[in-house]
């Protein structure tokens, strides 16, 4: 088994990269946030190596003795992480560009809807209007206005106009909206 003791140099680099990454991540400028993500990613990738044990030879059979190899598993994980960071970088850059296109800056603004909700809650106002829940009508009133789309029966008394029973009349179909 490989020597597991961590290298202090690597740990210090991890600490520095993570701290710088977090510092930039908490900024409002999207391009600085992005730099933060990159630093943070590098730091965590190095953390993977530290967790895998001491340095060794390349994990390639025939090139390094099996006992001398560095741990290949964290390397495989880090490799995909590096490439995904590239995808993420591109995505955030596209967002920064789009933000610049729309607002002429790339700052992350506070969510307006959230601020509005907070203001309303602070003022103890209703959070929203719900036409379906806020009712004043009674059960009987509701029932009186609801009718099914029935019909197609002939009048019992031919002379009588069939207006109230006509299925197509708006009062029958629309009901209460």
């Amino acid at each position: 088994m490989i020597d597991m003791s961590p290298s202090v140099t690597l740990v210090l680099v991890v600490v520095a990269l993570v701290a710088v990454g977090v510092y930039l991540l908490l900024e409002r400028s999207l391009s600085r946030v992005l730099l933060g993500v990159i630093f943070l990613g590098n730091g965590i990738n190095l953390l993977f190596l530290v967790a895998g044990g001491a340095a060794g030879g390349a994990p390639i059979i025939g090139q390094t003795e099996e006992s001398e190899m560095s741990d290949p598993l964290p390397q495989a994980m880090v490799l995909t992480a590096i490439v995904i960071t590239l995808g993420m970088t591109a995505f955030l850059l596209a967002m920064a560009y789009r933000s610049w296109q729309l607002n002429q800056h790339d700052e992350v603004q506070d969510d307006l809807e959230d601020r509005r909700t907070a203001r309303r809650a602070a003022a103890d106002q209703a959070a929203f209007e719900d036409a379906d829940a806020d009712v004043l009508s009674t059960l009987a009133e509701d029932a009186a206005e609801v009718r099914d789309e029935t019909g197609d029966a002939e009048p019992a008394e031919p002379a009588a106009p069939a207006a109230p029973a006509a299925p197509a009349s708006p009062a029958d179909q629309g009901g209460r909206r």
Partner: protein
Amino acid sequence: MLLLLLVVHLLVALGAPVLVSWLGRRAFLVLALAPASAAVWALTKTGEVMAGDGPVQVVEWVPHLGMALAFRLDTLSWLMVLLVGGVGALVLVYSSAYFSTRAGGLGRFGGVLVAFAGAMLGLVTTDDMLLLYVFWELTTVFSYLLIGHYADRKASRRAAMQAIIVTTAGGLAMLVGIVLLGTAAGTYRISAVVAAPPAGSTVPVAVVLLLVGAVSKSALVPLHYWLPSAMAAPTPVSAYLHAAAMVKAGVYLVARFAPGYAEMGVWRAVLLPLGCWTLVHGGYRALRQHDLKLVLAFGTVSQLGLLVLLVGLSSQAAALAGLAMLGAHAMFKAALFLTVGVVDAATGTRDLRRLTGVGRALPVTAVVGGLATASMIGLPPFAGYVAKEAALEALLHDAGTPVGLAVLVAMVLGSALTVAYGLRFWWGAFADKTVTAEPADAPVTITRPSLVLVGPAAVLAVLGLAAALLPHLGEDLLSPHASTYPGDPGHLVLWAGLTPALGLTLLVLATGALLFAARGWVERTQARASFPLDADTLYRRTMRRLDDVAADVTAITQRGSLPLYLGTILMVLVALVGGALLSGPGLGVGEVRAWDTPVQAVAGVLCVASAVLAARARRRLKAVILAGISGYAVSALFLLHGAPDLALTQVLVETITLVVFVLVLRRLPAYFSVRPLAASRWVRLAVALAVGLTVGALALIVPGARVHVPVSVDFPEEAYVFGGGKNIVNVTLVDIRAWDTMGEISVLLVAATGVASLIFLVRRSGDPLRASDADRRGVVWGQAADPMAVLRRRAVAAAGHADGAAPGGAGRQREWLRGGHTLAPQRRSVIFEIATRLLFHSVIVFAVFLLFSGHNAPGGGFAAGLVVGIALIVRYLAGGRYELGEAAPVHPGILLGSGLFLSAGVGLVAILAGGSVLQSVIIEFALPVLGDIKLVTSLFFDVGVFLVVIGLVLDILRSLGAEIDRHGEEGALDDPEGELIVEPPAPGSREARIAAGEIPTEIEGTVAR
């Protein structure tokens, strides 16, 4: 067989919309076959069920949960199947005439109704509690859809929402009860749980929760209010769901579990008061309603209370009466609802204050309604009478105890109210009376309904008579289930002699008739005594309060600030991980080394220094370049650690990142925006240090905390023997952990798509740009000032003198890059173009080499794809966006899609070859020239990765490079003050002739002024 019936229901439900669109409303006659088949099937099994060996079917489903598709047909299920199937079929037949041919949404309505019948069928026949819950909630969902059938009406939407909230809440409580009960009993089989009730402290809780489900579903007080609101549903739905079937689910549950649990204190404490209260409350409220459906709805609430009371009492005689009542109620109440539908369709109103003379105009309907009403109020010789007599007899038997007496009094009172609202209903619907409604309402006119509309109600009403007239029929059929209750057996007879029960019946009838006669006084008294707070108002206030609380919680937790969210997440990381590191037993910093090699320290210092400088930089470009240096230093650390694959990938990615950054930074301001919130910088710094130190502590402690041998110790052997490769990291990616890689390349695909969708605002699916698409020459990147133009012109003139002819004669290819001429002249560089021309193909060959050798040496699909990406970047930088299209004349979506398809396809091939997903197959063969070839199928997986990575880079270049270029040029054209210097070529000018291809290409191309 039962499973087959359920499948039939499902198929018919799915086919219903198609059927309705073909046949119109007549399709309901076809749909009726599904529930009818269930009823007929139950009838054919009557003999076996009575003998106690009804059909049983068990199919294992989720054995780990003890969940099985278990069904059985015993007496109780048989009765319920008959009701569900029979009434369901009749209601569907009724619907075929009830709805207008022009009515909307009939296809959905029919499908959902049949689906509901199927769910109900499963509910009453399953022998598995978990399955029971599944069917239970299915009926809730279908009932929601049916109540909300007229989704454009506010009342319908609200009623549907109320019903689903109340019944789902009850259902969830029931699920908890089921799990508690199943855990206590060690089985979820209902028959076993009822036969041998488990003991334990959780059992009473489980029983109460189970009953909460029954109470909500069967609309018992205080959760009854959803049922009257649900009358917003079309009348056939009210007849089926809210009279015969769904509301009986709660009664069914009580009847199912009562034989094992009815003696329990909590059972009686919940059911008896609620049952009595509901029985009286429903009857009382029914006396005040003017809408016929509401009269029946409150009547149903009342009857449900009675039913739950009867089957929930631990008495054999009462249970027999309850089962008889269950059947009788389904028949008469469904018939009454269907009758209301007829009256409603014929007159256009259900308001009993406006209806008059309906009995004379529709005599058949009036008679049918009369028969059903007679059964409801318990007149002999109807089923309702027989059941009520048996119930009174059974309750009288237990009237010695105070509880028994209270139940009896409630029963007598409730029955008297039933008589009163029953009479009020028939009188209101059919009798001649003085119309008392406001003059604004027009007098009703009556149309004649079709016979199909009256038929189903008539069948049910006559059945209610026949069931009572055939001696011993009900008792023989129902007593097998009743006999599972303790106590003396009861009897269902029309004439039992002059018993005290008969006296009570007479008392009930007389009181009811009196209440009906004094209906005006009753209504006025009720109006005066109205309660300030009814359950419905309480429900609405609760929901409103819930919304407010949710808004408050949202306001507190969702502040809308990204730094705040991220800071919170990070502080949680510090608290949890840091706390665990500090408090974890046996954790501590073990042996450490200063460095692996001294060079590591050099690279580390470089990395940290450039990172810190980057954080302090005010210029964007400076920050980006410093970040790049830090990234290269990280790759050096990778290399020193013995990870050449990582180092290679990191260098490539860092390069691409730098270029991409610069591409976007062209358009962003040179400096980061001014940050006025300087105070918060110290907070950010503190958080950053806390997180950094936590991660550092993690890095120091975690390696020493390992207790197991790493899984990767076997990787070398596995990689070589099974994966057929020597580069363990690569084999890990494409074979050992191929699933992970597949997920990760999917992420890349999503990211690429996201980038493109953010930048390509209109569409991104256009063909790649080709040099021939450029409508003008020398425009790309031409916005900047061009101080060298004059010099260049002179040079061209001199060259022209020297040669004495136009440069670029026939056969001389002076164009190094096909897209070069599209570039603004001041942007072109001969050296760069030539270098690109020479290097591009070599780089591609190198990438292919990396791809194929990656299995045994550093390289692989990721690295190879990135190298191709860099080659594309070089072409783009040398020749602009048209050159990029020439270099990669494919759409990136095709690369991404085919790459993912290839990787996934390799996995499927392994399945076809008999292995597990993504297993590698090694094929070795010899070719004449190339020698022995060893082909590992995971190579194709790596090719897929390769294509996805190329697609990603190409998408990035197309979006962040080419498309942003185009935005810039458009912006400059739109802007009158812009620096754009290119003018449209005048006809016949040099520019126009170049564009037309008359003058051969020259390096400087168009002259810009």
